[in-house]
């Protein structure tokens, strides 16, 4: 059963924050959903993909976030409702479109969900995407629970149509990836088709139009602020009967602040901002006047804090204000109750007992994420190390294969964003004498690798590009990408050939290898590095998890280590990496339950001590 589709009106169901967003969108009557997957936003798109056919909506996994946003903009500008979701850094890709779409505005409700990742649980940075609301002049909603994810998404569509502006719903990992009870309403069938009424003085942003539309945007933001003043999403809650201490907060920080205030038995009030941009100035000013001290509790950047300080200064309100700028709260990482409790105390709140001193067991073996048993990337990296003796510079990219960074492969030297492998490789090669190898996944290649490759051909760069093609977007949960021939039931898709794209970019030297064939792959890398310009190797082998799930694809012949033949050289653990192979008390072993049967370790062993299980 698909809860987000089948939960009847009025029922209470346990939903992930991301699923609650999807349900909210369905109840708002969306016609269109798009995304490019990225943790912690992926489950929004995945949930819509699962139900799209039955719900009668159009859903697609787009090539990247910008295309996803532009597609949704085209539909929403025509007059239907559309939602586009992405992780925080995905909005960097879509930002170009969004900044100007705020000028044109929209006819149908347009909601962009961005999921931030304080503490970088699964991201390359912890940027605070509330800045995009400020940068673009875009109304911003910040849910704090699954119930609010549902309600605010639904509300965002109303707001978007009322203001004729795009609306951002911003979550964080601890909102998107929290499950809680959600009381749902009725799914309505929204408008699916709408004739686009031409209006170039609004939708074609040549300079003369843009100048006018910027003015319109600022007027709309004034209206938005009025709506925020009276919005039930901006509410004051009394703690222990109220008092002279005030807390201004939003998003996940609200949850920690509420629990901390309760535990500290603070007598005061919490101003919880769910509709946090534009900041409701009158409401905040009154809250400041009503309290002797106001503490601003927010994760990451001091955005609310500076707005609150600005209002106090502007209106000469003497209330003492605490936040990040005075060091009471950190500007780094995700918060928790203990951090907020300590901050409230540093700002003068008293009460509550000391928090427990945690038991810490020292020197436990670490368990970072690793490439899976049977992972084709592991085989590729072994072959590359063998071919280059690690004497190369590795420009890496975003995907499971980034884990090649770790020993024994050390196969990542530079990485900043999706597609940066191809772009940076040229610069690395230009000023270094070592060979340069760029690694990019199949999904990432389509997402952001192609312009870099065209640039490299056009400007005569020299490096080897290895496209690690595991036939899926693995890290985020096996979503399809433009190279996929098959997607979820909703999506009628056509596979775009990586080879044809590569050739079309002007690449003259291209080889496709099966990374499970270590020798062939090693030779291909050696040969590629002898080429004068750009060489491309596509290392193609289906993700081992999919092969296992479908019980096909992998060679699937379990292996074991013949202890009599084993010379204890440790090659299988020191130069190769497989979670199924362990070395405990100087004895190497293969855990048959974990073994994916790829047979790569048998090629890695110099003494032929790794054999097939009969």
């Amino acid at each position, binding site marked *: 059963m698909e809860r987000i589709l089948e939960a009847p009106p009025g029922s209470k169901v*346990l939903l992930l924050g991301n699923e609650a967003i999807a349900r909210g969108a369905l109840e708002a009557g969306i016609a269109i959903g798009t995304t490019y997957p990225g943790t912690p936003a992926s489950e929004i798109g995945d949930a819509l993909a699962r139900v799209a056919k039955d719900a009668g909506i159009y859903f697609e996994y787009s090539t990247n976030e910008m295309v996803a946003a532009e597609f949704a903009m085209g539909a929403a500008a025509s007059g239907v409702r559309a939602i586009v979701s992405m992780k925080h850094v995905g909005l960097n890709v879509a930002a170009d479109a969004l900044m100007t779409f705020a000028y044109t505005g929209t006819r149908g409700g347009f909601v962009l969900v961005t999921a931030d990742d304080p503490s970088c649980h699964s991201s390359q940075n912890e940027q605070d995407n509330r800045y995009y609301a400020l940068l673009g002049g875009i109304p911003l909603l910040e849910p704090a629970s699954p119930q609010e994810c549902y309600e605010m998404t639904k509300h965002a569509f109303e707001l978007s149509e009322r203001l004729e502006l795009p609306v951002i719903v911003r979550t964080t990992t601890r909102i998107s990836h929290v499950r809680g009870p959600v009381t749902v309403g009725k799914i309505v069938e929204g408008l699916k088709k709408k004739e686009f009424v031409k209006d170039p003085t609004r939708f074609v942003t040549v300079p003369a139009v843009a100048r006018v539309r910027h003015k319109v945007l600022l007027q709309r933001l004034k209206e938005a602020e009025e709506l925020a003043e009276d919005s039930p999403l901006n509410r004051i809650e009394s703690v222990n009967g109220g008092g002279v201490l005030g807390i201004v907060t939003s998003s996940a920080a609200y949850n920690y602040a509420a629990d901390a205030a309760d535990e500290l038995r603070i007598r005061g009030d919490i101003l919880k901002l769910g509709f946090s941009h534009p900041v409701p100035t009158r409401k905040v000013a009154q809250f400041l006047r009503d309290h002797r001290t106001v503490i601003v509790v927010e994760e990451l950047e001091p955005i609310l804090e500076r707005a609150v300080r600005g209002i106090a200064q502007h209106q000469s309100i003497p209330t003492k204000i605490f936040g990040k700028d005075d060091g009471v709260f950190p500007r780094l990482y995700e918060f928790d109750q203990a951090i907020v409790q300590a901050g409230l105390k540093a700002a003068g709140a008293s009460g509550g007992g000391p928090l427990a001193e945690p038991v810490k067991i020292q020197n436990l073996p670490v368990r970072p994420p690793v490439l899976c048993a049977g992972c084709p990337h592991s085989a590729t990296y072994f072959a590359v190390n063998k071919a280059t003796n690690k004497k190369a510079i590795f420009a890496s990219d975003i995907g499971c294969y980034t884990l090649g960074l770790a020993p024994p492969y050390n196969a990542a030297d530079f990485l900043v964003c999706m597609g940066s492998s191809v772009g940076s490789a040229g610069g690395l090669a230009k000023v270094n004498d070592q060979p340069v190898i760029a690694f990019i996944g199949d999904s990432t290649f389509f997402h952001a690798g192609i312009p870099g490759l065209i640039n490299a051909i056009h400007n005569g760069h020299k490096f080897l590009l290895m496209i690690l093609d595991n036939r899926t977007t693995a890290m985020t949960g096996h979503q399809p990408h433009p190279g996929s021939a098959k997607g979820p039931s909703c999506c009628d898709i056509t596979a775009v050939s990586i080879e044809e794209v590569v050739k079309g970019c002007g690449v003259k030297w291209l080889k496709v290898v099966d990374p499970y064939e270590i020798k062939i792959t090693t030779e291909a890398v050696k040969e590629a590095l002898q080429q004068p310009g750009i060489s491309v190797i596509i290392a193609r082998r289906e993700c081992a998890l999919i092969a296992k799930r479908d019980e096909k694809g992998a060679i699937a012949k379990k292996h074991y280590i013949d202890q009599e033949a084993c010379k204890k050289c440790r090659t299988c653990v020191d130069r190769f990496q497989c979670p199924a192979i362990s070395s*405990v008390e100087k004895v190497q072993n293969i855990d048959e339950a974990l073994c994916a049967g790829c047979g790569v370790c048998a090629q890695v062993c110099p003494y032929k001590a790794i054999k097939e299980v009969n």
Partner: protein
Amino acid sequence: MVDIYLVGVGGQGIITASKIIGDAALLAGRNVLLSETHGMAQRGGSVVCTARIGDVHSPLIPDGRADVILSFELLETLRALCKASVNTAVLSSTERIVPLSVSTQKLRYPTEEEVKAQVVRAAKSFTRIDAARIAADAGVPMSSNIVMVGALAGTRTTGLDMKHFENAIEMNIQRKLEENLRAFSDGANHVRPEA
């Protein structure tokens, strides 16, 4: 308020286990919040889930505040002890998944007795569960996670009835439901704290 801290290794079905606990709580008419932390990989890394039954805003469990630590892997049991106090019941599967760091950095994987000694020092009780064997005996070798949910139910610390858990399992498990329900009840029957 009952705080359950679930730990283990990616691929062990910890998120499914937490969903079952969450649905069971909701079926019992209680409030509940779950959180999940899974890093940048599909498999193999440490995974942490929290289940907080009761009225609370924060999904994360503060250090030293877990009522129950439900661990799916022996080494992860030790890593979870930051959430333990003298009031915490620790339920640990005896399953061992040797992390690569043990092989590559030539570290030692702790013995069961060493784990027990550390847990006993930090927590109220320690219960070992041979979840893999119990699951295999029930005919569902991949369902160690269901055995562990059974163990949790068997402690009677959650305030939820067996029926709530069983109904929640039906909501979350499609394949081999009967065997999974057996794995659940076998897990519940195996809870005998050693210390």
